[in-house]
């Protein structure tokens, strides 16, 4: 926990998608990605209020594999802005809403301030749906918080045909109201002046209700309808006129038949693009590493150093980094989806199917982000209100085919599919994603039978935000940030493991190395999967990070960092035989078994740590053990089954 500080805290509060993250970025000068999906902020972010005119310090924080936990640090004597997950009401009903509420009532435990409540609240009010977001404003003002209302989405409201009078609103609510534009930042300096003039030295005493009665909720809405009607400047306010029916896009996206077809097309397109859009870039990276290997080989002379650099580092890293373009494309397309507002529609469409396997429409976004990485996915699962559904979602998240598996798929599919058939390759990759969904569904059903938690009465409700044309810049910047941090993390692990591997294989001597000894021990365990000890060692190394499997094989087979990194490795795999025999190690059957193994095995220790935090130690360890054992069993069954029916 941080030291108690005398910093003053301003908390941003508001409904999901009201524009909190955009405002936070303007106030602090950082560049978090904003996501057009309810519940994108699942942890707090805290940043120093930027004085007017101060240049933006570009600090990127994207939520991904590598930043599972960030303790906010707070400088004494400053004004700190705190972003919170979106809430609908002052009474929380899911974990992420609970997180937001803690920022109001127990700051001391969250960021270590000496006081429990913040100095000031900035409540965001979406001008396109004032009547729905005003009750929250009323509750916090009633609770005693010094409050400023930031009125966002005014451009969209005008497009809808009305204009909110901020002076009138302020008069009716009794607190200052400042109009801002979350995209351009217009009005933010007025808001900052407002914050500065209103910010008290110490927090006001507050009393936050822990429950509301039906009467109170209804009364809040009666008040809100009235305030909204009186603050709307032009046109008369009739609730029905606020319900204009669906726009053109939604008439397709939410259509029972066309919507489903579109959904399947979008999902297929997402995974397809990972394969096809990345192909030209992959050639480029491959060329680059080939050139690097030759260049280094030419300059290092012959000897140990050359072996270490060329065979250890360059070929190890190259074998994995060839697949970075695929990962970048995945991040980019997912970013586009998040920014557009489609994900909420998607969750509405799949709720029906997810319910039947014990999950919830709200599991959709966590599961989909699991296709990038299980860590942010586990955090996103906090938006699922029911405990049972949340735990089941957390159970199956590691079965989603995450980006760390992409290099593995690339290699194994490269082995199975001839390179002159890119169409088959794209199909095969889509098939792997489908298979991961099948496994996850089966595990959810079985897990539901084992898990002893009563179903809760939370149902499924999700707000469908307005469609927004994705802001190209935001999406590209976010994808770039995530890719770079992927490369950094994976790069470090891969380099370390590659070097360690190279050392294990060459000492005491190449013929009698530490690696061979280790290999002999694990050989019996790996034999049922139709593989030899060398692959077994690579599988164990993959517990450091799944993509290490690829670089470990490259090092084991001493693939020269020549021309084509993957081609070299594939050629080595095609020629690999069990020691002392001419029996091939990599056959269609054993490679299919490997695919099954990687689909199921939980080989990511960060995931285990996060699951432990989100649920319990027992859950996390049980999950890992179960998935590793299951992976081994199913891989063995696959290999032996295929051999029985005559597949080599």
């Amino acid at each position: 926990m941080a030291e108690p500080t005398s910093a003053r805290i301003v908390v941003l509060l508001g409904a999901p998608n009201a524009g909190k993250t955009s405002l936070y970025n303007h106030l602090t000068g950082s560049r978090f990605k904003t996501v057009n999906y309810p519940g994108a902020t699942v942890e707090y972010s805290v940043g120093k209020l930027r004085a007017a005119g101060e240049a933006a310090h570009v600090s990127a924080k994207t939520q991904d594999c590598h930043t599972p936990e960030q303790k906010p640090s707070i400088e004494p004597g400053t004004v700190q802005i705190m972003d919170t997950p979106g809430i609908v009401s002052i009474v929380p009903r899911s974990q992420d809403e609970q997180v937001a509420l803690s920022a109001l009532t127990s700051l001391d435990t969250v960021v270590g301030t000496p006081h429990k409540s913040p100095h000031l609240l900035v409540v965001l009010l979406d001008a396109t749906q004032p009547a729905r977001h005003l009750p929250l404003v009323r509750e916090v003002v009633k609770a005693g918080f010094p409050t400023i209302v930031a009125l966002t989405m005014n451009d969209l409201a005008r497009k809808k045909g009305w204009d909110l009078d901020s002076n009138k609103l302020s008069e009716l609510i009794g607190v200052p109201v400042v109009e801002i534009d979350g995209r351009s930042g217009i009005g933010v300096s007025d808001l900052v002046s407002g914050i500065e003039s209103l910010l008290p030295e110490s927090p006001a005493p507050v009393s936050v209700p822990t429950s509301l009665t039906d009467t109170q909720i209804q009364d809040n809405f009666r008040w809100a309808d009235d305030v909204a009607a009186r603050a709307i400047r032009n046109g008369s306010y009739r609730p029905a006129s606020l319900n204009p029916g669906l726009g053109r896009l939604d008439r397709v996206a939410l259509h029972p038949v066309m919507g489903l077809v579109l959904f399947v097309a979008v999902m297929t397109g997402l995974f397809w693009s990972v394969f096809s859009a990345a192909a030209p870039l992959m050639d480029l990276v491959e060329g680059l590493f080939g050139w690097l290997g030759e260049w280094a080989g030419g300059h290092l002379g012959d000897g140990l150093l050359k072996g270490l650099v060329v065979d250890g580092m360059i070929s190890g890293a190259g074998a994995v980094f060839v697949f970075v373009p695929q990962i970048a494309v995945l991040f980019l397309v997912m970013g586009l989806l998040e920014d557009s507002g489609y994900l909420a529609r998607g969750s509405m469409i799949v709720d029906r199917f997810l319910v039947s396997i014990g999950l919830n429409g709200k599991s959709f976004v966590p599961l989909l982000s699991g296709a990038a990485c299980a860590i942010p996915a586990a955090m996103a699962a906090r938006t699922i209100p029911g405990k049972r559904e949340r735990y089941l979602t957390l159970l199956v998240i590691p079965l989603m085919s995450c980006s760390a598996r992409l290099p593995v798929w690339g290699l194994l599919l490269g082995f199975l599919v001839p390179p002159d058939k890119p169409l088959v390759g794209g199909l095969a990759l889509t098939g792997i994603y489908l298979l991961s969904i099948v496994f996850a569904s089966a595990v959810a059903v079985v897990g539901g039978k084992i898990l002893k938690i009563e179903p809760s009465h939370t149902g499924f409700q999700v707000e469908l935000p307005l469609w927004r044309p994705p802001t190209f810049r935001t999406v590209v910047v976010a994808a770039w940030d995530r890719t770079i941090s992927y490369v950094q993390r994976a790069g470090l692990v891969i380099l370390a493991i590659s070097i360690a591997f190279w050392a294990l294989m060459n000492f005491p001597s190449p013929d009698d190395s530490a690696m061979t000894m280790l290999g002999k021990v694990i050989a019996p365990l790996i034999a049922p999967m139709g593989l030899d000890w060398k692959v077994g060692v690579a599988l164990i190394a993959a517990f450091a990070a799944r993509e290490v499997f690829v670089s470990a094989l490259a090092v084991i087979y001493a693939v020269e960092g020549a021309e084509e990194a993957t081609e070299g490795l594939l050629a080595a795999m095609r020629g690999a035989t069990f020691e002392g025999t001419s029996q091939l190690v990599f056959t269609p059957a054993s490679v299919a078994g490997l695919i099954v193994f990687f689909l199921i095995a939980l080989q990511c220790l960060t995931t285990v740590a996060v699951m432990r935090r989100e649920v319990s130690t027992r859950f996390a360890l049980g999950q890992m053990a179960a998935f590793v054992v299951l992976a081994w069993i199913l891989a063995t069954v696959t290999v032996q089954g295929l051999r029985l029916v005559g597949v080599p």
Partner: protein
Amino acid sequence: MDRNISQLGNGQEASIRRVGGHSSLSQRLQELGFTPGATVRLVAKAAFGGAMAFQVRGSTIALRRADAACVEI
């Protein structure tokens, strides 16, 4: 039999009379704007008896069919 918003036809509007169901669900529905007296319009239905989208107080909100059945008209 009481009518509820899950029985609305596409594009149909109705005024809410009562919100029933388990208390935590009925409160959440009301917090989302489905309060007695509010006008609701059904705008979309997902396939195979899936979730439905409603407009209430200017927002579009998707509800599972069983949840929508708690909102009586």
